[in-house]
């Protein structure tokens, strides 16, 4: 009971809403325990005003004895001490007693409440069976309750409840308890709603007055905080937090407005100079010191902020949101620094750093206090910001207090330190016993250089570790860099180097040039201290060429290199080799001659354009290039190929031998100034399965792919297509895989050049080529050929001569003007000199003018190729004659016959003869035919111009070459002997009649000759060249004449279609049998009469006639002149009109016993020694082989006939032996009837 009479202790988290108890105190005391237990057991829905979402809350209450002092006076808005409900307890069951004392007591209680305007009351009537039993004369119990209700609750009958037998375990008692508790809860909530609502309204009214003068934020703060306390008391932390957040926002807005010039008076108190910077205090739920300061309006900005945050922190931790605390803490700290700045509050230098540092650590400690280790590690990302901030602040404090300087703090620094420590005040009682308190840490860190280093490194490493753990590598490196700066300040470059190197690498990889420059500068300093000469010089070189630096800085670094270079080399020292990329850029390389192909002994000029990146002129003592030599046989990369490739390089390189080097990509950094691509950065990658960490896959990852795999100008691609043009040994030099610039002791080396540059040096054997000047060389007329001598490595001396072995078929004509032109290897005309040509019987000697090596000598000669007089017979080849062969090969598609002419030349540079083949084409094609008219014979020669040239043709003559007898003569009948023009593809026909005296020879050897000259020839007479065509005629005399007659059917005058007509064929022997012919003709003696068998055949190819009955037959002709044989046959015309006669053919009919009449053709093996043609091409062998086989098939076939199946054979007559009298005759055939119907359609 005593406990309830104490004044409630507020400001602890054990606050509960106050409920006063009046009436029978002993009764209440007996019920208190179960009441306090049961009240929060069931949640109650709290409906709230202003549309706020209803909440389920568990109600608790602090039951205190009713005293008038507890009731709030007017104007006191303290909510925490506000009694929300007043309960009057009574167990009176006696009307007398009620009337005597209880009623009065209740009235008094009621009037007190009414006096204070409190309407939240409840009267509890406790009934017990025990009491009832004692008093037997009691009224029904309801009457007491009714009385009370009558007396007090005029309209609120629910303000009086009955609790029956509360201390007994019965269902009735339980029911009454539960209805009582429900009532109690409802009333409590009603009271809350009403009172809080009123409070909030008051609060809002107060807030609305904020523009009025005299309004104080601190007062308002206290009011709203009261509300927050109540929410907190009701376990409504969210709502409580909202109150603080509103206060926070309001304050922030005021500060901002102040910054904007709209100052409020009350803000003045917050603008007081900061005197204490002892950091946040988060270990107490409520920091009463600060609260009182606020209440008194004496709080500084930091105090207010600290207090606000400590409350927010407390609530957030209640809400299990520790990570929000860290986030808010960081915001708060940043914000406070800004606000102090904005409000122009004067702060001792470093004081804020102290405050921030302490606050960071305090927050971290608080968080560590409420989370376990695993949770902390998993949420590094939330805390790392605070760690970093603390590190930064400690660092700046260290710098401020001279703790980083190599020499330690000065007295001024010490004074400052003392001032700062003074502002921290005494350590708070909460942390006095803690060894690791932020206060102690700061004190210690500021007290000595060593302690500072220890703490600073500890913090830095912790922050770095955290950043690494969460993958924020850049942030980690930034801390590493500031560590490096620290080490450098401490004079410990060894430790700084690693951090700097790590950072530099990442900046270079990601292409951040300013950072690269900055870090590199620090690196240079570090390397200088470490005496890493080579590295230092390399870094200096990079910095000297760095466009991000000022000229002075660059000059300084350049001077560093030059100074080192000019030092006399110590005996132990080698020259220092540095990468050239930093020092100079190779911009352009120009070859002269542009093709970059030279012969041995020639000079190749190479013009390098190097851009110096140094800020001052540097004297380069030596420039060296290393060449890579590669030997290529046979010119795998021909001349044209390499020239083509070179032109392909560089956008401007139009074959002028210029190679441009791509400039450094912009992302490689202006600071790097490097023209070369960065080296591949490859890293091993392993993919392990998450479950058992077994290796899934592994590979190599290129980290700087974006630098390497960028789109380059397509023209810079290397064209590797090459053409082999000539046999030459090419030595190509790739230039230079390594080029070096030396400055004193320093060498700058560029290890590779891209694109690869190379030039070729070749050595060439002397070479002679002979080419026709025109497309085709024509046989028979003089033709010009061009001799080209590529001297190669041979120098033509005076007296050197070409020896051409003469051939009869192709004499070399001495031209009047014959001069040679000398060209240089680049095709320039160097000189011209006359040639002297001497011919002897065997050789023609051309003495050459002296020519230097790798020059070209050109001259022209006229040659003539004689036309072989006979038509070539392709079917026989004489392999025994290996030297000469006519090669009848039709030229292209025009049927020109060509002659391959080999020329054997002895060159002065070789002991071997050079064989060169020239192909000539015969311009004409000749054909002959024999024509008969009865016994008279005519010879026709057709000459066709198959070349493209137009010729004059004159003097066509036909002579008999073989027999010189005068037994016959040839009379020219047709064909002009005057020159006539023959165009391309035009033919000339000539005709001769053959007359003879006695008898015609069996065989005639004829020769056709004519003169021809090209129309374009200037001198027509001398230009005429002979053309000769020889041929042989056999069996020319007419043996038989054949006459056919078609007779209409008897009684008819004309033949008619469809009717049979008679065909009478009469065969008449024309010639007397002769001995020579007798040999030839197969004749048989029958009854003393020499007969020969003929077979006739009627064939109508045009299907004009139908041959009826037999169409062929064998007749025996007597071998006597004018012997005639008639054959009757029947034919039927199929068409009307003038129909040509059907063809009638006559063959020799040879019985089976006859010897095959095949004779070897002697003409086919004509030999012409004047032709010295040599060609053993495989194709020709194939040709002739097939021809030979064709010939052999014939003979084999006849052999088979003899051997296997003896059959009579037919043999045709030679042309001219049979004269067809009725050839070309026609006969009129009438249609059967005249009633022709002509259908005419008119549309």
């Amino acid at each position: 009971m005593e406990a309830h009479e104490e004044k409630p202790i507020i400001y602890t988290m054990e606050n509960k809403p106050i409920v006063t108890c009046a009436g029978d105190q002993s009764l209440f005391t007996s019920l208190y325990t179960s009441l306090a237990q049961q009240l929060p057991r069931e949640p109650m829905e709290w409906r709230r005003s202003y549309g706020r979402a209803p909440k389920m809350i568990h109600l608790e209450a602090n039951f205190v004895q009713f005293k008038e002092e507890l009731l709030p006076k007017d104007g006191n808005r303290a909510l925490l001490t506000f009694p929300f409900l007043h309960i009057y307890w009574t167990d009176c069951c006696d009307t007398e007693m009620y009337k005597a004392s209880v009623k009065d007591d209740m009235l008094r209680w009621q009037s007190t409440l009414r006096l204070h305007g409190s309407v939240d009351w409840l009267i509890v009537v406790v009934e017990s069976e025990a009491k009832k039993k004692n008093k037997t004369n009691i009224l029904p119990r309801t009457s007491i309750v009714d009385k009370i209700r009558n007396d007090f609750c005029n309209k609120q009958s629910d303000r009086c409840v009955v609790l029956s037998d509360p201390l007994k375990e019965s269902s009735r008692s339980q029911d009454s308890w539960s209805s009582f508790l429900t009532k109690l809860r409802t009333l409590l909530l009603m009271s809350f709603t009403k009172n809080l609502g009123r409070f909030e309204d008051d609060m809002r009214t107060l807030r609305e007055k904020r523009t009025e003068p005299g309004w104080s934020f601190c007062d308002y703060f206290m009011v709203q905080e009261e509300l927050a306390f109540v929410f907190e008391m009701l376990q409504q932390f969210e709502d409580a937090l909202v109150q603080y957040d509103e206060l926070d926002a309001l304050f922030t807005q005021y500060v901002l407005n102040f910054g904007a010039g709209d100052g409020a008076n009350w803000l003045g108190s917050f603008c007081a100079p900061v005197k204490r910077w002892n950091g946040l205090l988060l270990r107490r739920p409520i920091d009463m010191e600060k609260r009182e300061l606020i209440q008194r309006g004496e709080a500084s900005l930091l105090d207010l902020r600290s207090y606000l945050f400590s409350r927010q922190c407390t609530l957030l931790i209640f809400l299990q949101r520790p990570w929000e605390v860290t986030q808010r803490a960081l915001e708060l700290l940043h914000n406070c620094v800004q606000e102090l700045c904005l409000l122009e509050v004067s702060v001792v230098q470093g004081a804020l750093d102290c405050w921030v540092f302490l606050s960071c650590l305090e927050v971290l400690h608080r968080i560590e206090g409420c989370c376990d280790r695993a949770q902390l590690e998993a949420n590094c990302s939330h805390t790392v910001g605070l760690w970093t901030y603390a590190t930064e602040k400690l660092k700046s404090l260290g710098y401020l207090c001279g703790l980083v300087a190599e020499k330690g703090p000065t007295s001024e620094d010490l004074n400052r330190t003392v001032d700062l420590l003074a502002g921290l005040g005494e350590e708070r009682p909460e942390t006095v016993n803690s060894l690791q308190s932020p206060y102690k840490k700061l004190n210690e860190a500021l007290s000595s250089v060593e302690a500072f280093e220890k703490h600073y490194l500890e913090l830095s490493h912790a922050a770095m570790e955290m950043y690494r753990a969460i993958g924020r590598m850049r942030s980690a490196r930034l801390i590493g860099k500031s560590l490096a700066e620290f080490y450098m300040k401490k004079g410990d470059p060894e430790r700084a180097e690693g951090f700097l190197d790590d950072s530099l690498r990442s900046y270079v990889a990601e292409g951040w040039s300013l950072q690269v420059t900055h870090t590199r500068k620090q690196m240079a300093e570090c390397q200088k201290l470490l005496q890493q000469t080579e590295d230092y010089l390399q870094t200096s070189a990079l910095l000297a060429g760095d466009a991000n630096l000022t000229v002075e800085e660059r000059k300084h670094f350049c001077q560093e290199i030059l100074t080192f270079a000019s030092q006399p080399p110590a005996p132990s020292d080698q020259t220092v080799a540095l990468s050239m990329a930093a020092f100079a850029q190779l911009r352009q390389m120009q070859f002269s001659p542009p093709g970059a192909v030279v012969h041995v002994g020639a000079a190749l000029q190479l013009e390098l354009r190097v851009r110096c990146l140094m800020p001052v002129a540097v004297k380069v003592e030596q420039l060296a290039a290393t060449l890579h030599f590669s030997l290529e046989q046979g010119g795998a990369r021909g001349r044209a190929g390499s020239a083509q490739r070179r032109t392909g390089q560089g956008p401007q390189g139009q074959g002028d031998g210029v190679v441009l080097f791509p400039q450094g990509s912009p992302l490689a950094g202006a600071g790097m100034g490097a023209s070369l691509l960065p080296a591949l950065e490859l890293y091993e990658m392993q993919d392990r399965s998450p479950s058992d960490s077994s290796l899934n896959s592994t590979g190599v990852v290129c980290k700087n792919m974006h630098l390497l795999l960028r789109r380059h100008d397509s023209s810079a691609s290397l064209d590797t297509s090459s053409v082999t043009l000539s046999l030459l040994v090419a030595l190509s030099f790739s230039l230079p895989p390594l080029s070096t610039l030396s400055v004193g002791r320093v060498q700058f080396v560029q290890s590779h050049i891209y694109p690869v540059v190379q030039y070729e040096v070749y050595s060439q054997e002397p070479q002679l080529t002979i080419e026709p000047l025109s497309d085709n060389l024509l046989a028979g007329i003089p033709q010009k050929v061009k001799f080209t001598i590529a001297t190669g490595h041979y120098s033509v001396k005076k007296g050197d001569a070409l020896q051409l072995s003469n051939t009869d078929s192709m004499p070399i004509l001495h031209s009047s003007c014959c001069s040679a032109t000398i060209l240089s290897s680049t095709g320039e005309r160097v000189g011209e000199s006359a040639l002297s040509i001497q011919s002897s019987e065997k050789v023609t000697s051309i003495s050459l003018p002296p020519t230097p090596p790798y020059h070209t000598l050109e001259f022209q000669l006229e040659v003539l190729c004689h036309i072989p007089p006979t038509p070539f017979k392709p079917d026989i080849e004489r392999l025994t004659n290996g030297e000469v062969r006519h090669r009848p090969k039709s030229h292209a598609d025009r049927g020109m016959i060509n002659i391959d002419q080999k020329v054997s030349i002895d060159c002065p540079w070789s002991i071997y003869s050079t064989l060169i083949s020239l192909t000539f084409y015969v311009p004409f094609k000749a054909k002959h035919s024999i024509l008969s008219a009865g016994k008279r014979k005519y010879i026709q020669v057709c000459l066709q111009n198959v070349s493209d040239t137009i010729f004059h043709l004159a003097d066509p003559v036909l002579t008999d070459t073989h027999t010189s007898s005068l037994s016959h003569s040839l009379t020219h009948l047709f064909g002009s002997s005057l020159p006539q023009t023959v165009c391309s593809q035009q033919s000339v026909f000539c005709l001769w009649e053959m007359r003879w005296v006695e008898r015609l020879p069996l065989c005639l050897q004829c020769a056709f000759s004519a003169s021809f000259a090209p129309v374009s020839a200037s001198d027509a007479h001398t230009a005429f060249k002979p053309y000769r065509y020889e041929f042989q005629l056999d069996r020319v005399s007419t043996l038989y004449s054949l006459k056919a007659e078609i007779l209409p059917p008897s009684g008819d005058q004309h033949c008619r279609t469809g009717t049979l007509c008679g065909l009478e064929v009469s065969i008449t022997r024309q010639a007397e049998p002769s001995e020579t012919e007798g040999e030839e003709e197969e004749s048989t003696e029958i009854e003393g009469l020499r007969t020969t068998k003929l077979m006739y055949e009627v064939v109508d190819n045009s299907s004009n006639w139908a041959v009826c009955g037999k169409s062929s037959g064998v007749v025996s002709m007597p071998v006597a002149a004018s012997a005639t044989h008639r054959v009757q046959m029947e034919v039927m015309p199929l068409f009307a009109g003038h129909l040509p006669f059907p063809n009638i053919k006559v063959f020799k009919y040879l019985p089976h016993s006859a010897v095959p009449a095949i004779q070897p053709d002697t003409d086919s093996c004509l030999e012409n020694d004047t032709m010295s043609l040599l060609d053993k091409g495989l194709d020709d062998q194939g040709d002739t082989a097939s021809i030979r086989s064709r010939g052999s098939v014939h003979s084999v076939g006849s052999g088979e006939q003899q051997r296997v199946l003896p059959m009579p054979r037919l043999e045709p007559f030679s042309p001219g032996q049979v004269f067809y009298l009725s050839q070309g005759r026609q006969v009129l055939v009438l249609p059967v009837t005249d009633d022709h119907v002509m259908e005419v359609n008119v549309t």
Partner: protein
Amino acid sequence: MAVCIAVIAKENYPLYIRSVPIQNELKFHYTVHTSLDVVEEKISAVGKAMADQRELYLGLLYPTEDYKVYGYVTNSKVKFVIVVDSSNTSLRDNEIRSMFRKLHNSFTDVMCNPFYNPGDTIQSKAFDSMVTAMMVQAS
């Protein structure tokens, strides 16, 4: 308005970076570079499935005592970073968003230029003047 505006390529090298005042340039470079850590973290935090609906604006990357760093990532993973002075409290989130949108539009124009080689640093005058308009006028 902004004190530093940076456009960073997909591969994290700067395509464009400008800051006022000039003397703090290096510090801004460091700040922007370090902010890439958070940008990457935020990008990877959004799952791949969500990549389509991902908002380009990343919000406040991290505050420092003096500056606030905001981020924005285009669909092609080009990053925009805007650094704003912390004392400039009048700047609302919406304004930052609209700055990024303007920046993105202008960047798109740059990319549409047929003479611009993707991956090169941005030297467009139009882009530059647009950035200048968004920057604090150096006083």
